[in-house]
């Protein structure tokens, strides 16, 4: 059963251009010059209920715009979007009761009041029964360790605490679709892990569909099996995370720890070292040449440790975005 069906979604914007300085300002009063921005340029994908997938892409790729179209915030220029069986743009009450879009820097909690007051307001808005509300509030606040700050005015909390409260506020109505836009941005390492674990548990426990965008590869690696890579408004890859390296990287990493200092020139004749840290060398070697390089190293040098790995996802993706090597 599909939770999300997107077909050829396009979202274009008109942005006004302005030259700098006062002359430019006056000029812009009289003449209009627009630039057409193609935020999303024809993407299609389906997501089944209960999936936890990651959207990744460079800044300005169209990830957030896609999420906003999925939730009904933005009116799509063309194409079709079906979320939980609804047309999100219609903004039906039943639809909005089941979704949540959490965006890192945006706030819905009232600045001068404690989080609890805002939570009660959300309870009224979403028409959540008292028992259910209490239960879920306890669960969420203990998971994110904010039980003690619920009665402190939001403006007195630190950024991390505030974001956790916002998070809780967005989930009180137990949405079956969770859209998370950079949920761990600006948080300390411990909080990041808390939120990550929470998302994983939530997804498993409630079988809710989760779409996550993040620049933090830790989030993606730990949570998502399936990844959609977006760049310049187009889907570049839609598949398993593990297959990314295989698909995009021609190389593998060989990490060698030598037993003693070896002749650098001799080493470089066999393979180019990507990283050197005293006795530890990391080589990036073409897939077909891995076995020959490994045997040569083992033959010619004394090696304390050797391992062969796929290059880290971060590197693959980074190279992908930089080199635009979408084979």
């Amino acid at each position, binding site marked *: 059963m599909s939770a999300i069906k997107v077909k050829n979604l396009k979202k274009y914007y008109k942005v006004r251009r302005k030259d700098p300085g*006062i002359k430019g300002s006056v000029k812009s009063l009289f003449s209009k010059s627009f630039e057409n921005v193609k935020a999303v340029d024809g993407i299609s994908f389906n997501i089944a209920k209960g999936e936890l997938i990651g959207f990744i892409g460079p800044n300005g790729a169209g990830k957030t715009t896609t999420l906003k179209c999925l939730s009904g915030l933005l009116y799509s220029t063309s194409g079709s979007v079906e979320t939980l069986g609804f047309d999100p743009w219609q903004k039906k009450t039943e639809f909005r009761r089941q979704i949540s879009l959490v965006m890192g820097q945006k706030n819905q909690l009232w600045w001068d009041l404690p989080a609890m007051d805002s939570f009660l307001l959300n309870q009224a808005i979403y028409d959540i029964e008292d028992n259910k509300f209490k239960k879920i509030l306890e669960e969420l606040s203990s998971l994110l360790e904010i039980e003690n700050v619920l009665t402190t005015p939001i403006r007195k909390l630190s950024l991390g605490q505030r974001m956790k409260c916002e998070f809780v506020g967005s989930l009180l109505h137990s949405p079956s679709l969770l859209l998370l836009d950079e949920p761990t941005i600006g948080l300390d390492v411990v909080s990041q892990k808390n939120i990550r674990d929470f998302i994983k548990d939530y997804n498993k426990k409630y079988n809710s569909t989760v779409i996550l965008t993040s620049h933090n590869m830790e989030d993606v690696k730990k949570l998502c099996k399936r990844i959609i890579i977006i760049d310049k408004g187009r889907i570049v890859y839609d598949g398993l995370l593990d297959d990314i390296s295989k698909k995009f990287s021609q190389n593998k990493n060989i990490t060698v720890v030598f037993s003693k200092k070896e002749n650098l020139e001799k080493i470089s004749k066999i393979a180019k070292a990507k990283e050197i840290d005293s006795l530890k060398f990391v080589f990036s070697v073409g897939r077909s040449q891995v076995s020959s390089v490994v045997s040569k190293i083992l033959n010619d040098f004394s090696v304390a440790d050797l391992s062969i790995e796929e290059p880290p996802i971060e590197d693959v993706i980074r190279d992908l975005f930089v080199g635009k090597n979408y084979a």
Partner: protein
Amino acid sequence: MHKYFLVGKINLQRHFVYRLNFVLWRVRNLVLMVSLFVFWKAIFKGQDELLGYREAQILTYTLGIALIRSIVLASKSADLAGNIKSGAIASWFLKPVGIFKLWFSMDMADKILNIFFTIFELLLVVFIFKPELVFQTNLFYLASFGVLLCLAAALFFLLSLFFSASGFWLTDVWAPNFLFMVVLLQIAGGGFFPLDILPPLFLKIIKFTPFPYMLYYPMKVYLGQISKPEVITSLLISCFWVFGIYFLVKIIWKKGLENYDAPGS
């Protein structure tokens, strides 16, 4: 010095960025001017004199006040309180600029633009309605008018700073701004209608506050409707308020900064 000029220039540009905003700002000023003008014309239909004013005098008052408002009043300094409340002001302290001078240059940019367009709008109204107006020729009154105007502008700026400081203590900064800068200054200060129309007791009381010295008295001096000794008195009282508020501003800002806990992270 150059950096303040730059700030003023950038502030000017901000107006053009939101160009519809800018056009509406001018339309708004025009509507305000015209609505008061039309009101008095309607009241004076068939009357030669009302409450001590001839039609020409009261129309001059209405249009003149519009010009005086553009010279004396400014809006940027009003934003200051909001900046204090949100903590945005903290970032300014980190930069090597004098914060009062900064707001002054932003106000200046605002005023120059405002005055330029207000004159244009005034001429438009005069052209359409062709009212009879009063033109002051007496040197004494003109000179006093000029001086009073400068004092008025300074007084307004200082009062803005004074009430902006409420941002240090109050969470809702809109209220003191509303009471003092909108109601007392503009309404009770002669910005809508001349104060001597009302029962004399009112003027007797408000004369002791700084409010009528920004709009009402400059206009009355221009119209030549108050006696020469009274002109001197109003000049002196204006000076008194300018210096008085200046010192109060220094004190209150010092206190405010000491207690400030710059909200936001």
